[in-house]
């Protein structure tokens, strides 16, 4: 009998190519073997990082939307006991619904009425007046301001692919492309004397 190649099984699990038996075998070994567990974690982290980087720089995807997509799959994959936890939420949800029906609603839920209007009237009246004209700041400066404390900036645009047809005309195809641009941090800009 050949020894099981657990590294291969880890990669298969990452790629969604693992069978149920193999997954069970791998889970058992992961519980027993801390070195293997570390390897699995490292592979998973490296994989997620590489996927995000690739999708953002080569495919032009929005990083956040990608993360949202992969998050459920990543959390559900390891540990065969996890799916059972969902059942624990059902009694809690029923209890919360009953409680919501039983407890009398406070006034703020009414939404409209004099009280609501009175609350709004305490706001600064200037806020309710539309501002004359459109204030525009320098786009370069504002983008620099936004980089302080954050390093990513999303840019949605369209790319044109030109195709030369048999009749000699050029046809343009619009392809939506979202990019996540990475810009220098505020500290780095200050060091360069640009901010």
């Amino acid at each position, binding site marked *: 009998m050949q020894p099981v190649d657990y*590294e*291969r099984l880890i*990669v*298969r699990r*990452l*790629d*969604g*190519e693992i069978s149920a038996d193999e997954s069970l075998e791998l889970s058992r070994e992961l519980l027993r073997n801390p070195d293997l567990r570390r*390897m699995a974690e*490292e*592979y998973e982290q*490296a*994989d997620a*990082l*590489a*996927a*995000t*980087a*690739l*999708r*953002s*720089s*080569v*495919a032009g995807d929005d990083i956040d939307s990608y993360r949202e997509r992969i998050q459920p799959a990543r959390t559900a994959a390891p540990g065969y006991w996890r799916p059972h936890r969902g059942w624990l939420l059902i009694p809690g949800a029923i209890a919360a619904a009953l409680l919501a029906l039983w407890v009398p609603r406070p006034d703020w839920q009414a939404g409209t009425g004099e009280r609501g209007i009175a609350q709004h009237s305490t706001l600064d009246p200037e806020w309710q007046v539309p501002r004359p004209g459109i204030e525009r700041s320098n786009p370069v400066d504002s983008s620099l301001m936004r980089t302080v404390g954050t*390093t*990513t900036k999303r840019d949605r645009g369209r*790319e044109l*692919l*030109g*195709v*030369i*047809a*048999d009749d000699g005309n050029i*046809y343009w*195809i*619009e*392809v*939506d492309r979202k990019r996540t641009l*990475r810009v*220098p*941090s505020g*500290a*780095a800009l200050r060091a360069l004397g640009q901010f």
Partner: protein
Amino acid sequence: MAAVSLVSMTMALVKEFDPEQPVVEAIRAGDRHVFADFVRRHDRWVRGVIFGVLGRTDPVDDVAQQVWTTVWRRLAEIRATDRWRPWLYALARNAALDAGRDVTRQRERAREVAFGSTTTVSRRDATLEADESYWAAMAAIAGLPELYREPFVLRHLSGWSYQEIAEVMGMPVDTVETRLVRARRLLRDALRKEAE
């Protein structure tokens, strides 16, 4: 028993049916709108192939543009329309190889340090970024041998199964799997080294 064979026959038929085949036929007939949709659906993995070959991101846009232009011109030449995917893969790969040769010549002349260099990423650029892990990941992927980088990028950008990658690259499924395992190992080692 009969039911089992019927199910297996149906599954085989479903597996064989390629929804893109009528699309390819329509493009061959000159339907521009269908072609535009086709480009949107497959642009990602075509770009993945180009990056997989070159290990650089900067020429990807230009080469992808060139590939799609060629597809529009030459799709009518395909005899077996069910083999459009390997055909497109080969087209993208060859375009990337040609571009790689041009880029190498240019690089030898200019000696410029660019992001997509196959083995190094400018540390100055990296230190400018708070999110260094991104650069580390891109450098690690770019540093993978092409042999491993190509299936790895295809897997991550297209989400194809081992079987699909094997079909397109024209190699056994086991080979694809082995290359993906080695790619992961090299990537992990490179990122670990970067972190130290």
